């Protein structure tokens, strides 16, 4: 098979993995080496496809042959998709060729399971090893690992990679039993726990001055939204646990979308993409804004409001806490004001040490006045109690239905 045909099949096979990060690696570069590559700082998105996703890494499967039968996956064994397999050398060459032309930050390599977990893991590792040891490649490598692979192999993968990941895919064993019968939550979590320990060890050694150590700095995972009946509260509770106990760098939410070769036991209707977007927003509230999952969702309302971003929805449910005074409210409180993002909160804290803040100042900070005004008191503005109490407040923010799909990611501030 021609290389281009393989690339078409094995990139297509990898595109359902939402992970794209190329950030968070240890700082390094190719000065004094013999190959190419640098990492460190924020990752770079080298292109964008019309689905709004960035291209940061060459994201491919080593092969889409697979003995597992995960029904949400186009590569499952019962699918009739065209199959292909790269040789290690082909992936190595493509990675280097793309990298040297500045198309990518590095490689994201995953694979269908062939023969068994260990065999597959070894094939994936061979690519990373060749890149690092033969070509002195110092760009970013993300390796997908398999929970059933031996811990030693997973650790070997971590030594060649900047990030490793195992996808949870579905939040309950019950769902997995139906949709991904070869997968086990217990085994996945055990593997994630072991990875976490190894990441911690490497971190300690680095902190202790070991500059030579080469080891991944983090792990991430992905869950599929809308393929089973799990609620947003289920997903967020799970993410909370993953961030806290497994030190995940990122949990990716991937709204199940129609695939070729659809399985008869999957829902035929895809969830709205905005649900995935709301989950990401809620995830950010947990990680950067000090919200607890139980504040974002409750047993009575286990799903996020699709019409309003979760911070605004929270503020509307907690009107008694507003308005807050921009001049005196704490950082924690300001972070909870709809329309104020982390950066502007920091700026406000700085500014108010020297001057009193007015609405015109907020405009210059590019804060959306209609969004913050009901919730903030400034030197020249005090929202009327009537406005905050009124049911019309929600109506003010709810978009007209046809606008729903137009939301962009930066909408939550």
């Amino acid at each position, binding site marked *: 098979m021609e290389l281009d045909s393989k690339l078409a099949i094995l990139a297509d096979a990898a595109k359902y993995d939402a992970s794209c990060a190329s950030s968070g690696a240890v700082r390094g570069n190719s000065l004094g080496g013999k190959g190419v590559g640098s990492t460190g700082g924020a990752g770079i998105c080298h292109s964008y496809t019309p689905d709004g996703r960035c291209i940061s890494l060459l994201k491919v499967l080593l092969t889409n042959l697979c003995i597992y039968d995960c029904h949400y996956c186009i590569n499952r*064994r*019962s699918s009739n998709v065209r199959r292909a397999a790269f040789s290690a050398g082909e992936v190595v060459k493509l990675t280097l060729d793309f990298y040297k032309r500045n198309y990518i930050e590095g490689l994201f390599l995953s694979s269908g399971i062939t023969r068994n977990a260990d065999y597959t893991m070894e094939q994936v590792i061979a690519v990373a090893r060749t890149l690092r040891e033969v070509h002195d490649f110092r760009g970013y490598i993300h390796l997908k690992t398999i929970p059933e692979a031996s811990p030693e192999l997973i650790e070997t993968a971590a030594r060649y990679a900047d990030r490793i990941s195992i996808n949870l895919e579905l939040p309950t064993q019950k769902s997995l039993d139906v949709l991904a019968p070869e997968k086990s939550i217990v085994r996945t979590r055990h593997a994630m726990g072991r990875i976490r320990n190894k990441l911690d060890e490497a971190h300690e050694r680095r902190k202790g001055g070991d500059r030579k150590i080469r080891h991944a700095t983090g792990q991430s995972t992905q869950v599929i939204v809308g393929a089973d009946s799990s609620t947003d509260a289920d997903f967020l509770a799970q993410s909370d646990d993953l961030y806290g106990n497994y030190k995940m760098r990122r949990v990716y939410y991937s709204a199940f979308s129609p695939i070729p070769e659809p399985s008869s036991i999957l829902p035929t209707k895809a969830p709205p993409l905005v649900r995935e977007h709301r989950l990401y927003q809620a995830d950010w509230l947990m990680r950067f804004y000090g919200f607890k999952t139980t504040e974002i969702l409750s047993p009575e309302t286990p799903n996020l409001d699709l019409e309003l971003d979760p911070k605004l929805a929270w503020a509307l449910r907690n009107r008694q806490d507003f308005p807050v005074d921009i001049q005196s409210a704490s950082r924690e409180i300001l972070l909870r004001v709809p329309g104020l993002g982390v950066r502007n909160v920091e700026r406000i804290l700085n500014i108010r040490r020297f001057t009193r803040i007015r609405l*015109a100042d907020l405009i210059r900070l590019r804060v959306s006045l209609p969004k913050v005004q009901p919730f903030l008191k400034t030197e020249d503005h005090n929202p009327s109690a009537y406005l905050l109490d009124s049911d019309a407040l929600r109506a003010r923010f709810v978009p007209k239905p046809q606008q729903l799909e137009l939301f962009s990611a930066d909408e939550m501030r």
Partner: protein
Amino acid sequence: MKCVDPGENFASWRAAARSLLDENVPPHEVLWEKAGGLFPAARVEPPASPRLKVPAAFVGLAESAACHRDPSRWALLYQILWRVVRGGERHLLSIASDPDMAKARALEENVHREIHKMHAFVRFKLIDTDEVSGRERYAAWFEPEHFIVEAGAPFFKKRFANMDWSIFTPKGCVHWNGKLLTFTRGIPENPVEDPDALEAAWRVYYRSIFNPARLKVKMMQTEMPKRYWKNLPEADLIEELIGESKHRVTRMLAEELRPVKPRPKNAYLDKLQQLSAEESS
């Protein structure tokens, strides 16, 4: 009114600004204009007094904002400098909502963004390979909105230390030979028009990694505005991919559902099933 030539970059502006401060010339009496303009530019005398203490935060801001193409940046920076040094507003740099600061930060942000986009969207083409050393030589054409070639270059040096490369732009060019970065004047036209041999594979990748079931064109354009497209070998696929996406989704949705098939005989799958049984008991 004093007419002063800011020169080409931060360093030349800084020299001019220093002597103006030294002579106590307030901002409203300075007209920052390139030499050869309407008024003859005053000669800038080197400052006589010791160097003025300027907050480090200002230097960082000014270095970035100076790369912006907006001709009013020099006056704005002098205005801020004056207020801090002569006006006693020592905390001005912390007041992001001050009208002058807001403008300057906006310039800085534009410049940072353009540097980031340069790092993202420069596309190298292989020019040749040295027969003896095997060392490769690459070149790229990029059209930045601001004067960012010098600020953006160190990234490429660190990343591509072991290849030779040039980045040509209308606003300055940079070259790396493995030892030294050199900067030359900008050129008006792309000297490396011919496509690179790898562009075909890159386009195959771009086409295949796109998911037609999740069209978000606006999001793509926010991050990759159209003005960059003409120098991106993948960008002329965009229209076609958007155009055919609806049809592709309809076709997927109309596909016959595949029935669940029984598990094949496989020792490894048997082992997994046994493990799962043990876990649940």
